[in-house]
């Protein structure tokens, strides 16, 4: 069965600093990978997706993620964090034997210090 691990439950960064959120997946074939962001009281907003092709994908709000098959990872990065980026970030996987459903990681809560 597919699974997603987000090893960091909480991360705190200073505004303007770079950010990397880790995501590892377990999947038998080529996965479809997603990052979603959830602000308090809000739904899940898609940041970016990887289906195939270029392993470095660009998303909204200045985020990018890199798919590394050898490491089973899909880490999310941003060069300079803004205070408004404080939220919870979820990595998710779909496809193949798991069907269309999304399997989510436990999330990483990002706090931004001014």
């Amino acid at each position: 069965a597919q699974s997603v691990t987000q090893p960091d439950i909480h991360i705190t960064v200073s505004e303007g600093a770079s950010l990397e959120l880790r995501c590892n997946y377990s999947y038998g074939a080529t996965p479809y990978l997603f990052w979603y962001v959830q602000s308090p009281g809000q739904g899940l907003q898609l940041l970016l997706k990887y289906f195939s092709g270029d392993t470095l994908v660009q998303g909204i709000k200045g985020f990018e993620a890199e798919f590394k098959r050898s490491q089973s990872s899909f880490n999310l990065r941003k060069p300079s964090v803004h205070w408004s980026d404080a939220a919870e970030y979820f990595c998710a996987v779909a496809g193949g034997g798991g069907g269309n459903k999304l399997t989510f990681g436990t999330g990483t809560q990002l706090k931004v210090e001014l």
Partner: protein
Amino acid sequence: EPEVTQTPSHQVTQMGQEVILRCVPISNHLYFYWYRQILGQKVEFLVSFYNNEISEKSEIFDDQFSVERPDGSNFTLKIRSTKLEDSAMYFCASSEEGIQPQHFGDGTRLSIL
């Protein structure tokens, strides 16, 4: 930009009562989903729906749960006899095609007393 809308935003229900959560997916989307998120836990898949039938469901989605697309625009989740452990945020999502990105609503917070 089109969005998924869910009503109500918060539902408080007595244990044992039936509850219906409503969703209006994005109009040209064909695949519909329900997920739930118990407070402090991860988002969990409940059910997917395509072509007027359930295409996949999780072990959480037992006989107490049902889904329906009654009128071509709404997509509902019904819980027949609610339990305390059904308290959670319920998210509806939709996608154009099966593996395309799913767009989520803002959720319905269900509180069972």
